[in-house]
C-alpha cells in the first residue's frame, strides 16, 4: 500500500455503515485492550524499578496516558491494515474489516487519542516521557505498520521496539530520565518478541501468505525460522538474568527468569524437532503460550519484589 487514499479504499471499504457510526464497544476494541493491559503492566514495572518516590496521582495519570497512547497506535494500525485484516481469519472480525466502524472514524479516533495522550503525559510528568510516547506511537503506526510489516521478514524484529518501549516511557515519566533498568527491560521484550511471534507465524503461515505479509516462515522457510527461534531463545536467557546482575532483580526474579529461560530453550528445541502435522502445531502453540507466560512472570516477579517488599538481593 502506497498512500493514504489507498488505505481508505482498499480492503477497508465500508460494508454496512449507518449515518450514526460504530458502537462504543467497537471503538474500545480498536484500542486493542489486551495489548493496553500489557503496556500498563510493563510501564508500571518500568516505574517501580526506578526506585524513586512516585507521586500517586502523577504516576496513575501517566500510566493511563501511556495506555491510551498504546491504544491509539493500535487503532491507527487497525486503520492502516484493514485491507489485510479482512483476508486473515484471525483478524477478519475486527471493527473496520467487519464494517462496524468507518475507516475515517477510526483514523480520527486514533489521531485524537495519540495527540491527547502525548500532551496530557507531557503536562502530567515531563516532555521526555511524552516524546518517548510520541516516538512509540509513530514507530508502531508508521514505521512498523505502514512500512516494515509489508516490506521485510524482519518486520516484527525491528517493529518489536515499539512494544518494548513502555518500561522506558514509564521510567522517564517518574524520573525524568532513562536509566539502565528500563533499557534492560526494553532489551528483554525486544529479544523476546521474535520467538514469540514466529511461533504463531509458523502455524498461521497460510494466513499470512494469503494476506501477502512477508513473515519469516513464508520468506526464509519454516526450518530457518525454527533455527532463529532457538537463537533468540539462547540470547534471551542471559538477558533475562541481567536485572539480577544489575541489582534490581532479587531472588524471586532470579528463580523465575532462570526457570522461564530454560523453559523457553526447551520449547524452542521442541519446535525445532516437531515439523509435521499436529505435533508441529502443538509445539508451536506451546511455545507461543509459554512465551507469554514467561514474560508475564518475569515482570510480575519484578512487580512483586518492588511493590510487596519481597526484594532480597542476590549477592553474586
Amino acid at each position, binding site marked *: 500500500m502506497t498512500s493514504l487514499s489507498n488505505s481508505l479504499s482498499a480492503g477497508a471499504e465500508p460494508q454496512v455503515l449507518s*449515518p*450514526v*457510526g460504530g458502537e*462504543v464497544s467497537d471503538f474500545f476494541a480498536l484500542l486493542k485492550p489486551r495489548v493496553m493491559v500489557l503496556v500498563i503492566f510493563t510501564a508500571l514495572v518500568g516505574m517501580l524499578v526506578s526506585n524513586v518516590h512516585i*507521586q500517586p*496521582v*502523577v504516576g496513575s*495519570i501517566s500510566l*493511563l496516558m501511556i495506555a491510551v497512547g498504546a491504544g491509539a497506535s493500535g487503532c491507527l494500525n487497525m486503520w492502516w491494515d484493514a485491507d489485510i485484516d479482512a483476508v486473515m481469519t484471525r483478524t477478519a472480525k475486527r471493527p473496520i474489516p467487519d464494517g462496524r466502524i468507518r475507516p475515517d472514524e477510526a483514523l480520527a479516533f486514533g489521531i485524537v487519542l495519540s495527540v491527547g495522550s502525548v500532551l496530557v503525559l507531557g503536562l*502530567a510528568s515531563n516532555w521526555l516521557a511524552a516524546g518517548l510516547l510520541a516516538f512509540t506511537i509513530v514507530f508502531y503506526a508508521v514505521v512498523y505498520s505502514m512500512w516494515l510489516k509489508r516490506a521485510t521478514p524482519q518486520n516484527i524484529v525491528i517493529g518489536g521496539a515499539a512494544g518494548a518501549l513502555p518500561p522506558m516511557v514509564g521510567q522517564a515519566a517518574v524520573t525524568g530520565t532513562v536509566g539502565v533498568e528500563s533499557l534492560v527491560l526494553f532489551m528483554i521484550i525486544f529479544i523476546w518478541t521474535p520467538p514469540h511471534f514466529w511461533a504463531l507465524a509458523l502455524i498461521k503461515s497460510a494466513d499470512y501468505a494469503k494476506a501477502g505479509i512477508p513473515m519469516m516462515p513464508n520468506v526464509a522457510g519454516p526450518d530457518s525460522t525454527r533455527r532463529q527461534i532457538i537463537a533468540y531463545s539462547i540470547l534471551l536467557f542471559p538477558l533475562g538474568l541481567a536485572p539480577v546482575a544489575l541489582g534490581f532483580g532479587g531472588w524471586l526474579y532470579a528463580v523465575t527468569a532462570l526457570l522461564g529461560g530454560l523453559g523457553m530453550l526447551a520449547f524452542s528445541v521442541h519446535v525445532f524437532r516437531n515439523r509435521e502435522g499436529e505435533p508441529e502445531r502443538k509445539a508451536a502453540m506451546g511455545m507461543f503460550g509459554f512465551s507469554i507466560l514467561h514474560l508475564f512472570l518475569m515482570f510480575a516477579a519484578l512487580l512483586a519484589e518492588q511493590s510487596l517488599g519481597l526484594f532480597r538481593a542476590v549477592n553474586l
Partner: protein
Amino acid sequence: MSDRPGPPGTPRPLTPEESQRRRKRSIAIAAVLFALVTIFYVLTIAKLGPQVLNRPI
C-alpha cells in the same frame, strides 16, 4: 416522527437501534470529557498543592 421521506437530500430518519447507539456514544463522550476535567483538576492540585492559591491579586 413521520415515516414519510423528506425533500431530496434530507437524511433518512434514524432507526430506534441507531438512536440508541447515538445516545450511548453521546454518554461515552460526556464521560470522557468529565474524566478529562477531573484529570486536569486533580493533576493541578497534586502538582501545585496549596501553592495553587498563592498568586498575586
